[in-house]
């Protein structure tokens, strides 16, 4: 059986997999990191988005063997060890950017990649376009977009604290 060595949230793992094992199966079933969700399993919903070497990808559409030697970040790897949330997580909480929460891990991972790659900042339209690969079945897009807009100011150091949601 193929063996893969990868770093997940800063920790090195060597795991035996099948050729057909998906990265999301390795994460959820072998490493028990169940924060990464599987919504559609057909590459459309983005619930399974993780970062592979700094790029957001759909982990249901990547073989575990294709991630050999890569650095993976999942939703579990965002908060500081003391529990302080990543600004994007904090913004999702502040702006009520979730209802059932199923799409949230993928939304947060996609949003972080999107914001990081646009240091000049994103307009509302660009945020909406950037979320093309993520579906929210509760259709909570409005607040998701607001949360990302607020988080980008903190992530790029334009504000030290998250702008509070209007009452």
């Amino acid at each position, binding site marked *: 059986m*193929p063996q893969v060595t990868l770093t997940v949230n800063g920790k090195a793992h060597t795991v035996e997999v*099948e*050729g*057909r094992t*998906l990265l999301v199966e390795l994460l959820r079933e072998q490493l028990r990191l169940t924060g990464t969700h599987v919504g559609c*399993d*057909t*590459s459309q919903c*983005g619930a399974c*988005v993780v970062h592979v070497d700094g*790029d*957001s*990808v*759909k982990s249901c*559409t*990547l*073989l575990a*063997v*294709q991630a050999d030697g890569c650095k993976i970040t999942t939703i579990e790897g965002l908060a500081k060890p003391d529990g302080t949330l990543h600004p994007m997580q904090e913004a999702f909480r502040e702006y009520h950017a979730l209802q059932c929460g199923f799409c949230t891990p993928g939304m947060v991972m*996609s949003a972080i*990649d*999107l914001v990081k790659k646009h240091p000049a900042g994103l307009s509302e339209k660009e945020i909406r376009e*950037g979320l*093309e*690969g*993520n579906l929210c079945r509760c259709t909570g897009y409005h607040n998701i977009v607001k949360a990302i807009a607020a988080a980008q100011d903190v992530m790029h150091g334009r504000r030290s604290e998250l702008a509070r949601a209007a009452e």
Partner: protein
Amino acid sequence: MYDFAYHKPATIADAVKILSADPDARAIAGGQTLLPALKHRLNRPPAVVDLSGIAELRGVKRDGNKLTIGALTRHVDVANSPEVQAAIPALAKMAGSIGDIQVRNRGTMGGSVANNDPAADYPAAVLGLNATVVTDKRRIAADDFFQGMFTTALEPGELLVAVEFPIPEKAGYAKMRNPASRYVMAGVFVAKTAGGVRVVVNGAGPGVFRQSEMEKALTANWSADAVAGVKQSAEGLNGDIHGSAEYRAHLVTVMAKRAVAEAG
């Protein structure tokens, strides 16, 4: 998904060796098309050959009046490449409009061209720009490469290595996306090249095709008005729950006008 043997060769020669030894073995590049297909058990390759270890398949190179893009170059890399943006901005923009960010972070030019999905974007650009497909064995003109729905001139075991795009005088692309799947309902790629004007339609038919009446009209007069009067016949076009053949035919003229306006 059925299980398979996994190979990761480091050279083109080694990849071709494995792929030629077993006609059912499949190459994997970004996997954004192959993995969904394997999950549906649409086929059962005994072996999957990962091309990602072959460095020479990757990258963009400008050589005089031609841009060579390696098969493994991802959509995101083509979209963000300063060389592509400077030489063929329509190509960079097209690559940046494929699927979504996550698909563009994995999907490759070679995978899209080799797959030849009738609704894919790349085949329109390759045919529209009169590009040459380079394989491990030969060079194939775009006019001979695309042979209808999911069919190309590639033979079993043949590897797409790169595509050479001659730099056009101007080029533009416009597409109408299906609002749900976001795949192309009808798209038109136009280019004014050294070898003449080319107009290519994707999404609307069972494969990419050249629209010769529009080519004539634009040769006589390069303007959106020139194509506005050219009607696309609905015969042979796709009709489905998303749109009738007549609707797609109508879209072809609208997209052609937009593509010319885009090209400037």
